[in-house]
């Protein structure tokens, strides 16, 4: 993979790995869950300082002017170290608003303000919800991007948390993240309006799903590394666990799935950057990422034995985090169905 990256990209990945190793990790994710926070504010501050939030924003508008491949390099490390931050939400929104004329909210986003998109219930799509939507990081969000209608026209709005028209109560996921139903009836500022909204919203939904899949990729790497370490050190019947061939072959299958998925994600990021991506690719990426993380976690948990069934062990919090990420912005079922419909080719 390395040979496909430029020198700059390699440096970026190294520094991302360092930063995430410093601020993240499974233990930190567990502490955060127990503390009741859904965002790691220290990590968020470090990420803001490192300038990641504007990765997709043109330099002229205060961003880094980079692309989806660079975003991938960052998010992979976020996932690998289970850092609980709204990086894909913020970078995606910043990208979106940087393309609009008035750039509403851009400077706040780049400054680390937590603004999260509320997508239709259980789907990837902004439009399907009948007024109800679901948002991640809702416990900490200061504003929500919501799909509404104005005079019969679709309109994306930025709704402040304390807007009286906003109805929601925060619910928690098993990993401590939040996933909250929202409904809105009010008059908050309109970001985009009219026909354009559909196209914008679809691309935004795709970017969110892609980014979440990348976090899952990093999480898979972490789970596999943890499992390999366990297999190499833990002994049973006088042999290291990892010497048993039945176990070896199952880990290998996880590795093969992971390697092909890494290639798929990299390729889709390139397609995004070159303007050749198609929504079916994103559906494939998210569906497959959710499927293979489930397979890899099943193997990882099984091979950890009883210790993997305790809350104390790191593999458990990774599993829980993977469940939340898999369900966010369309789970395996939703996205595979979307892929099927996009490629159905009916006469």
């Amino acid at each position, binding site marked *: 993979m390395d040979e496909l990256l430029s020198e700059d990209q390699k440096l970026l990945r190294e520094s991302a790995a360092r930063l995430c190793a410093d601020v993240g990790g499974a233990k930190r994710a567990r502490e955060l869950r127990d503390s009741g926070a859904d965002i790691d504010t220290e990590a968020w501050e470090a990420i803001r300082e490192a300038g990641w939030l504007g990765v997709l924003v043109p330099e002229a508008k205060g961003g880094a002017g980079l692309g989806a491949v660079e975003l991938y390099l960052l998010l992979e490390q976020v996932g690998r170290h289970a850092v609980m931050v709204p990086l894909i939400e913020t970078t995606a929104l910043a990208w979106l608003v940087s393309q609009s004329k008035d750039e509403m909210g851009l400077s706040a986003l780049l400054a680390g303000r937590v603004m999260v998109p509320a997508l239709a219930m*259980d789907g990837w799509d902004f439009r399907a919800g009948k007024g109800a939507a679901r948002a991640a990081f809702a416990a900490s969000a200061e504003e929500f991007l919501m799909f509404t209608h104005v005079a019969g026209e679709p309109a994306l709005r930025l709704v402040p948390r304390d807007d009286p028209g906003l109805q929601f109560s925060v619910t928690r996921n098993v990993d401590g993240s939040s996933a909250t139903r929202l409904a809105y009836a009010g008059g908050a500022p309109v970001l985009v309006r009219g026909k354009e909204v559909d196209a914008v919203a679809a691309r935004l939904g795709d970017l969110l799903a892609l980014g979440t899949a990348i976090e899952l990729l990093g999480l898979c790497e972490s789970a596999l590394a943890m499992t390999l370490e366990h297999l190499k050190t833990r002994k049973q019947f006088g042999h290291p666990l990892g010497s048993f061939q039945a176990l070896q072959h199952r880990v290998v299958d996880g590795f093969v799935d992971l390697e092909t998925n890494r290639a798929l994600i990299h390729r889709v990021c390139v397609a995004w950057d070159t303007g050749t991506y198609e929504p079916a690719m994103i559906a494939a990426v998210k569906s497959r990422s959710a499927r293979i993380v489930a397979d890899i976690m099943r193997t990882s948990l099984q091979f950890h034995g009883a210790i993997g*069934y305790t809350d104390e062990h790191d593999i458990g919090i990774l599993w829980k985090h993977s469940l939340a990420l898999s369900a966010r912005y369309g789970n395996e*079922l939703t996205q595979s169905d979307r892929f099927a419909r996009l490629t159905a080719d009916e006469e």
Partner: protein
Amino acid sequence: MSWDIASLFSDDTEADRAFRAEVRDFVRDNCPPELKRHGFRIDPPALKPWHRRLYERGWAAPHWPKEYGGMGATLTQQIILFEEIVRAGAPTPYPHGLNFIGPIIIKAGTEEQKARFLPSILSGEATWCQGYSEAGAGSDLASLNTRAVLDGDHFVVNGHKMWTTNGHYADWMFALVRTDPEAKPRHAGISMLLIDMRTPGITVKPIQTLKGDAEFAEEFFDNVRVPQENLLGGINQGWRIAGMVLGGERFTTGHPRYALVYLNQARQIAKETGAWDNPTFRARLTELEIDLLAFLAYYRQAAKLHGANAAPLSMAPVIKIAGGGLAQRSSELLMLAAGGRGPSVEDFPLQSGPVNIGSELFEMRRLSIGSGTLEINRNIIAKRVLGLPDE
């Protein structure tokens, strides 16, 4: 829930049906409503009143002989009793006293031991735990290191037990301890002691599970003195004694109840979330339901064979492999069916009662690691049933 997969394979006799109805009425009228909830783990103290009601009805120990206060029930009756309790969403008593150590005491205990221990197991007054696993001895149990040395008329126990279900609630532990460190093979040097958990020198620490509750504990033994009369079944006989309950007394733990409940819940959830119209969901549901039907048939056949003392060696591992896998895959389907709501810590409300999807998913991981991992059970079939060679 108008379609009931289990009903496809009910082959109750007239008498069975009458017994089933009797149990159903009893559970409806006697189980405290707050305990009636599918798949919800209840700590031993909260369970006691319900155990007591079953005891008073004479149904606490369906499989025990009548002379010890049991029902002397047929395996079919046992399964009916179990099924009707589960169907109502009611909990079953913990098996450690009634199903694990009780039958061993009946088979291998002295008259004094029977008189002393059986009544409080039966009534549910005493909570028992099983002290087998250790940090370094999970699947490879024979390598256990907790030592017991005879000193006068007491054994002095030192060591560390782990993964003990309800260890922190237990009044008594039945423990496998090493009494002959030189024995070859290693399992020939193991004895079974009945240990009062209030004996000085025992430190108990709960272990938090993935589900977030403390289902297990670990116990540290520091010069714990156990009276010699608490030795069960003779010195260095522990391995043989422990093997006595690997059969039918544990039969109900392999019952396909989890998959039955989960697949029914998955249908309900899917109809609410729209997953019902998703081809991948339907394909997986159909495959799991078909597999469940086969497993139901196997399980009932196995019960009959076991009742006739004709169960093949492969029976227990097949139940473990097929049943465990089915329950796990079914709990995974629950998570998928619920879409964005799947990973929530909140209950998913359903007509059949609320379900906490995460808890169920986490709980099911036990099935492939407890009492012999999936891999160990596959090894048993490969070598002892199919006769495949060692390397």
